């Protein structure tokens, strides 16, 4: 017998809100905070200017000290490094640049012994063109792996089979003179797409994943799952409307990739059985291993649900809505509303910054940075990230509130940026090395020459100077993450975003059956009043404004607050 539904439940259902699920320990990933280490830029221990696994080992105490639940490592597999590890030649190995398998096992044990789960970055849908699978596949039209990648004959006029573009620039098809056919590469030419619709290919990929899971890895961040499949008929994409693509796409305002609606090369229906097989292929592990898919180049708000519904595909996706969001608070609010309304039984992660993006402080809070309020802005964004519905992925340096540096053209390394500069500066500026010590050469990242410079403006924000500062973003993050651990409503609860007319205030409620928490953020450089009635009480959370006036909450610039009342709704 189901218990009688309360008015609140009815209202929630009417509003389209999902049924609230009670916290389940096994579902740690729902409300988890994951820390992303971009290994190449985290900590170098051998003086070659490139971060390595031993560097991560050396910094495990730091990561554990943040209070996060899991550590996600960017790819460290053997790779020609054309796309800095996202072009893999052996999915089971360790690139000598990163270290050895012994290093990895030590890292895994070290993470587990500190209560950290370890997630690997796994690239299921493409390899390097130097991967033995591709070397064999391209060698002829009739070898064992001839159909392991997406091959197609030329059009009659010799051109590529359709109009698909690489998001990194140029056609997504590359001619191969051995087979006299084109192969498909949604990203770089050296990153041919696997044909995961071909069962032996998918089996092989699952086999590679199981290798790591057998070693004890807790799950994967899966790269670019919008490209798990492409249209089997290779139909051309329609052009985007003149008003522009409805989706926020990277690569700069002029990128030709934006001129198409990616109906047939991204997020196609054929991907769904593939992701379900990926999930089934790893579902026998105890405890359960987690799959978090990266979903880019699509309308993630609407797509997230089908990738994660009923937790049958991926456990969660993370997307670029927050990364690519325009900074205007009303637009941000509208986007959050839409995101919340589309997701029903699925789950997502909130990502403000990652190794592919501009650093959020410089994107969403540039106005504050300009006013010299970088640390306050960083705290505000961390607060937002840790209170919005969904999991939370923090990119290294975000806890320090690092601003996005401007790098000169000469130091750029990212092939995407080199292809589209100056319309798009690429991803290097978000990947500069971690500043550990304000006074040490290169911020203590390396004793050699770092592969990308450590920006001067990052040094004063180095870890060692923030650790002793009570008001630093780092200190705030540590305290807030600890406090948040016991806040079931924040980790598992529902969400209701308040209307955009509140801008520059941003407010949303997080609720479960016991409590409603109203989060309010002042996204401006002026004091703002948020009217409240007497039913609300301020929550004593780290960094939050707790004084309530007669008319409500008076929020100073860039400050935030949590208010509560008992019960699920009012």
């Amino acid at each position, binding site marked *: 017998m189901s218990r009688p539904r309360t008015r609140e439940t009815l209202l929630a259902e009417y509003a389209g809100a999902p049924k609230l699920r009670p916290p389940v320990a096994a579902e740690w990933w729902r409300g988890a905070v994951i820390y992303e280490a971009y290994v190449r830029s985290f900590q170098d221990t051998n003086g070659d200017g490139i971060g390595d696994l031993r560097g991560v080992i050396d910094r495990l105490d730091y990561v554990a000290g943040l209070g996060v639940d899991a550590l996600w490592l960017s790819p460290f597999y053997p790779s020609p490094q054309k796309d800095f590890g996202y072009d893999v030649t052996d999915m089971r190995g360790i690139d000598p640049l990163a270290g050895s398998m012994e290093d990895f096992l030590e890292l895994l044990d070290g993470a587990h012994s500190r209560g950290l789960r370890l997630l690997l970055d796994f690239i299921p849908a493409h390899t390097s063109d130097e991967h033995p699978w591709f070397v064999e596949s391209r060698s002829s039209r009739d070898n064992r792996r001839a159909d392991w990648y997406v091959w197609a004959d*030329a*059009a*009659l*006029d*010799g*051109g590529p089979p359709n*109009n698909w*573009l690489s998001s990194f*620039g*140029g*056609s997504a098809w*590359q*001619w191969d*003179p*051995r087979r*006299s056919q084109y192969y498909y590469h949604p990203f770089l030419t050296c990153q041919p797409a696997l044909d995961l619709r071909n069962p032996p290919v998918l089996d092989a990929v699952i086999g590679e994943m199981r290798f790591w899971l057998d070693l004890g890895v807790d799950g994967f961040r899966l790269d670019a799952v919008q490209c798990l499949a492409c249209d089997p008929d290779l139909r*051309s*994409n*329609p*052009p*985007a409307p003149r008003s522009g693509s409805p989706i926020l796409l990277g690569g*700069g305002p*002029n*990128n*030709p*990739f*934006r*001129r*198409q609606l990616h109906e047939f090369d991204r997020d196609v229906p054929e991907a769904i059985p593939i992701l379900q097989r990926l999930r089934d292929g790893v579902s026998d592990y105890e405890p359960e291993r987690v799959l978090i898919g990266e979903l880019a180049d699509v309308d993630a708000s609407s797509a997230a649900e089908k990738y994660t519904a009923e937790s049958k595909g991926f456990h969660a996706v993370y997307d670029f809505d927050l990364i690519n969001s325009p900074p205007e608070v009303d637009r941000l609010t509208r986007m959050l509303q839409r995101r919340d309304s589309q997701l029903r039984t699925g789950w997502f992660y909130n990502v403000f910054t990652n190794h592919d993006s501009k650093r959020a402080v410089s994107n969403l809070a540039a106005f504050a940075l300009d006013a010299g309020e970088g640390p306050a802005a960083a705290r505000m964004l961390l607060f937002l990230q840790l209170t919005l519905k969904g999991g939370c992925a923090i990119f290294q340096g975000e806890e320090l509130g690092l601003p996005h540096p401007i790098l000169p053209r000469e130091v750029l390394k990212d092939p995407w940026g080199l*292809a*589209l*500069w*100056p*319309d*798009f500066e690429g991803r290097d500026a978000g990947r500069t090395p971690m500043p550990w010590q304000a006074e040490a050469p290169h911020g203590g990242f390396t004793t050699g020459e770092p592969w990308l410079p450590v920006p001067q403006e990052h040094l004063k924000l180095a870890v060692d100077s923030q650790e002793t500062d009570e008001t630093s973003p780092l200190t705030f993050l540590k305290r807030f993450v600890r406090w948040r651990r016991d806040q079931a409503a924040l980790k598992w609860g529902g969400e209701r975003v308040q209307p955009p007319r509140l801008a520059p205030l941003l407010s949303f409620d997080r609720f479960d059956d016991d409590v409603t928490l109203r989060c309010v953020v002042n996204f401006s450089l002026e004091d703002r009043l948020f009217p409240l009635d007497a039913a609300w009480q301020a929550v004593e959370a780290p960094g939050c404004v707790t004084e309530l006036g007669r008319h409500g909450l008076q929020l100073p610039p860039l400050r935030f607050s949590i208010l509560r009342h008992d019960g699920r709704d009012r």
Partner: protein
Amino acid sequence: MGTAGSGGHPWWQGAVIYQIYPRSFLDTTGNGIGDLEGICRKLDYVAGLGVDAIWISPFVRSPMRDFGYDVSDYRSVDPLFGTLDDFEALLGAAHRRGLKVLMDQVFSHTSSEHPWFLESRSSRDNPRADWYVWADPKEDGTPPNNWLSVFGGSSWQWDPKRGQYYLHNFLREQPDLNYHNEEVQDAILDIARYWFDLGVDGFRLDVCAFYFHDRLLRDNPANPDRSAARHFGFNPYSLQRHERDIGQPENLRFLERLRALCDSYDDRVLLGELHENEGVRLHTEYTAVHRLQLAYGYWLLGADELDARTIENVATELGHDMDCGWPCWALDNHDFMRAPTRLGSEAASGELPFAIFAALACLRGAVCLYQGSELGLDNADLPYELITDPYGREFHPAFSGRDGARTPMPWDATQQHCGFSSVAPWLPIPASHVPRAVRAQEALPGSLLNRLKGFLAWRRQHQPLHRGALRFLPSPTSVLAFERGDETGAVFCAFNLAATTAEATFDEQVLGHALEGHGFGGARSGGSLTLPAFGAYFGRRQ
């Protein structure tokens, strides 16, 4: 002067033009790359071959993405090769030896580092915004049309700053100049004038059918003739008929402007490179009166096998007018696999290519001799790691590019790196080239090198072979037989292009009296000729 005819005939009619690839000729600075000073030091060797002119592949300033065929400054010598003073010294030294000097001019495109292009790409409204071929993307963001690059992929490259595509028929680092813009034509003519003023005797015009493109940027049609695709099947470029991207009618008017400039100097010459498609039609148009004096197509360069009939058919198609339509024959150059390898096992010894070269030298036209061909060098087979040619790197292993024909000259097998350089050269000298080095062949009376010198010296004495009218005579399959005649008489030529002895019968009158001293060993008995393998007979009548 190294002229053939008397009576003021243009020197280039019947000329033998020796092509020098400077990067691989002789290194005097010890950097593994040949230079102008190296050419200077070997001018006696070149003059000693009995040639009339040298054509030097590009030596002007370049980032060397395409080894000089990507020019960033048309008026200065690349430091790799030397200085402008070095070039003037070379020019003077060549002239003193009676050698004309042709420069390789790459006018179709520049390097992407040329200041013109840097300015052109900087915005849509700078003074040189229209100097290159810029176009908006299609509605779906893709390139404006289906044109393909010879070197692979679309011939349109996206430029993020202008938010437009630019045209490049070759590498993306080789943007195409927009010849529909008169300012561009004028700028190019200024460059031509600059070198003519310096005393250069003419230009070899790189891909001169590529200057203009269809203004409306219409698609090329698919190529229904898939047999053409067989030869270049590795390259999708062969799947289109290149009706719109190259070979445009507007080009003729520009060639006339260039010729008019050329004619404002004494006896200078323009030698055009034609491309694969429609070579005969282009040859007819481009070498018409008031356009180019000479042009070469890929008829023989691109052939994997050559026989007498093929050569006869090409020569026949090109026509025999006296005042225009002069072909420049070429069996080898820096863009094609060397003939001893390309023409199959029968050619490996170098005898067949030598016989073909001799035949070409006797046909109406001029003829190119590519460095190393006089030694019978075969094509180098390089592993992928050593391949530097971007064309080869793109299409490997179906096509290994052009490095195999560009390895350094073997001068002297007793010296390190065959005397080419004191250090390891930019491309290795293949082992098969070592026994064929210049010094060894010079010492060997019957060597290809000495036979070639002897033949060219012999040929020089026979004026009809330079300028005479051409008439083919019916002959057995393996034999190429023709007559060249002018006011001084006629020379009959018969070449056996097979590895076995050939017999042929002709009208005794046509055969004339047998000429000696050419070194090809044919014998006559009445109206019957006996031609040994790769041999020839020459006869003269008044």
